[in-house]
């Protein structure tokens, strides 16, 4: 039987990396990701895991080492946050362009300036288009589970993409949660050793990373774009297989009391749990409110999103980042784009909330729903505001 153990989510993440038999770990410390690296160093130092661990001199190098080791066929892992992610941004595009199925956990944190270590999604949004499969998980169990899911998916020869698991810094990374640990035999069955399609080795010399002239570049980009879109089938398949093994079934978009709701809240990441509490409260008051949560950010789940939202009158999208000088929050922009062509669709009111660790309580969600319903009623159908700013 699987054990349920109370543990810090970062520790659970590190334990999952151990159970996934990762070959190479390379990382650089940054709050709030540090506990993962620290725990992994401990695990390796104690001989509990046969891996090469390198605490390197920068995140740029951490990702570069993973790129090098993954290219030899070694299962590779790194994790970071905010500034670290910014520093490795260049390499994230290269990892996906070279189709190297590295796994990275991002403990989401605000990008400076002003410097802040607290949680929002500005870091993840900076590299939105880097071509990785990108999950946003809601709780510790999902982080743990998605380590296995990600490697199984990324390493599939029909996929071959690196994967990011976004988990909220502090509110997830530093909390203690009950985690159901999976038996090693089950994991070994679910996730066999990596069998690379191509690997750097003198027995079969290959050139990896040639440059492309304009005459060929667009074709390579199209191939990448098609492959990432096409990975949706595999994503669903791997989630199904995982569910069959553990009883925990995941979906790209999840709904909560949403079927008949007139107004829908839409969240991504750990605030979904708080939002569901707010939904319960509003339902008790007889209001027709439900919740939609995006778990899969790339490839973007267009169909699932439409299915979950088109019937509603109002869609209140909660972003955790701002596209400064742009159309509002990045999630709302994508949601709007996804439903734009539909003859019947909800009005999308957009809040950026919980910017850099500002608390978002159930009460705040209720206030945002109130505000959005009034604004939409009054004709401001596509508004955007940063929520909770002191005047």
């Amino acid at each position, binding site marked *: 039987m699987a054990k349920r153990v109370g543990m810090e989510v970062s520790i659970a993440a590190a334990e999952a990396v151990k159970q996934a038999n990762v070959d190479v770990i390379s990382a650089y410390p940054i709050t709030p990701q540090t506990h993962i690296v620290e725990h992994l160093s401990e695990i390796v130092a104690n001989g509990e895991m*046969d891996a090469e661990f390198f605490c390197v001199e920068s995140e740029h*190098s951490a990702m570069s080492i993973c790129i090098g*080791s993954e290219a030899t*066929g*070694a299962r590779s892992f790194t994790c970071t946050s905010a500034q670290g992610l910014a520093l490795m941004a260049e390499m994230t595009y290269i990892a996906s362009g070279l189709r190297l199925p590295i796994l990275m956990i991002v403990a989401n944190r605000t990008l400076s300036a002003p410097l802040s270590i607290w949680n929002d999604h500005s870091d993840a949004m900076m590299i939105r288009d880097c071509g990785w499969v990108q999950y946003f998980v809601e709780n510790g169990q999902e982080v743990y589970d998605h380590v296995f899911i990600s490697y199984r998916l990324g390493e599939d020869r029909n996929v071959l993409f690196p994967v990011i698991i976004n988990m909220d810094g502090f509110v997830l990374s530093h909390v203690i949660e009950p985690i159901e640990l999976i038996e090693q035999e089950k994991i070994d069955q679910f996730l066999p050793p990596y069998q690379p399609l191509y690997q750097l*080795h*003198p027995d079969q010399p*290959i*050139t990896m990373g040639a440059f492309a002239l304009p005459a060929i570049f667009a074709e390579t980009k199209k191939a990448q774009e098609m492959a990432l879109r096409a990975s949706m089938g595999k994503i669903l398949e791997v989630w199904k297989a995982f569910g069959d093994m553990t009883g925990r079934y995941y979906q790209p978009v999840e709904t909560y009391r949403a079927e008949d709701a007139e107004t829908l809240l839409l969240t991504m990441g750990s605030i979904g749990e708080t939002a569901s509490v707010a939904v319960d409260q509003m339902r008790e008051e007889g209001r027709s409110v439900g919740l939609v949560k995006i778990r899969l950010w790339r490839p973007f789940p267009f169909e699932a999103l439409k299915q979950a939202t088109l019937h509603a009158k109002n869609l209140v999208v909660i972003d955790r980042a701002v596209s400064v000088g742009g159309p509002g929050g990045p999630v709302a922009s994508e949601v709007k784009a996804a439903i734009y062509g539909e003859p019947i669709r909800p009005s999308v009111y957009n809040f950026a909330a919980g910017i850099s660790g500002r608390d978002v309580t159930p009460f705040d969600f209720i206030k945002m729903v109130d505000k959005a319903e009034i604004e939409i009623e009054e004709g401001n159908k596509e508004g955007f505001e940063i929520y909770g700013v002191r005047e």
Partner: protein
Amino acid sequence: MIENLNVFAVRTLTQKEYFAPGHRSCQGCAEALAVRLVCKALGRNIIIASATGCMEIVSSPFPFTSWKVPWFHCAFENTAAVASGIEVGLKVLMRKGRIPQKKIVTVGLAGDGGTADIGLQALSGALERGHDFIYVCTDNEAYMNTGIQRSSSTPFGASTTTSPAGKTKMGQITWKKNMAAIAAAHNIPYVATACPSYPMDLIQKVKKAADIKGAAYIHILSVCPTGWRSAPDLSIKLGRLAVETGTFPLYEVEHGKYHLNIDFPKLKPIKEYIKLQGRFRHLTEEMIEEIQTRITHDYEQLKERDKRGF
């Protein structure tokens, strides 16, 4: 000693090419020659991680490749980190029995810009961690791939597109960064300087670096006729003059011990070297004198180290 041993010895080298002909470098490119010799020295059981730069661009326009050995390029500033990753990847896969045990030499290959400037941090990290690999810097003394811009390895006085000789400035105003000394300061087992004008010396050093356990750094002066504004048929001669004038001495640092490979009782005046290069055309007599003084001083210092051993 047999006279002109080097001339005959080259004929004993393998005929095999791992850096294939047909690449797109300029005529007289000694950087391409350096890479070719490095590959000859190492044979086929290697993996090369290359930086963005001339050697990458001339050799890998998709779908063509000049590389008969596994070759990997991903960016400009992280060659040493990528090579580190390759080295640890091979190590762990062999340990776990997923690939057969055998000696595979990991090589990082980058220009002076990719080494002394933007890649210095990644290089320092890799040397400090002590990965078992060879890092080769092919130094043509500027960013040639992007159009002859200065680097910290560009010599004093040289005119480049970002250190042009103008009315108030006479080309590069800083002195060449001493990369070999910086590498040696990491206490790695082996550091050497080399030049393709001395092919046997270069090959021996590369072979030695491959045999040594731990990190090895080889700094290769690579004449670039396009950037140096020199005649393409003078590249070998210019490399020789760089050594004979003391501008680029050939030496090794083995476990901290300095050893000057070729010592000249009397150096040729640097003017002989400088006058063949258009990048120095604007230099005044005083500036040449200033360079001569500095070169002589640095060479004397190196001789001291050679004598002392450290």
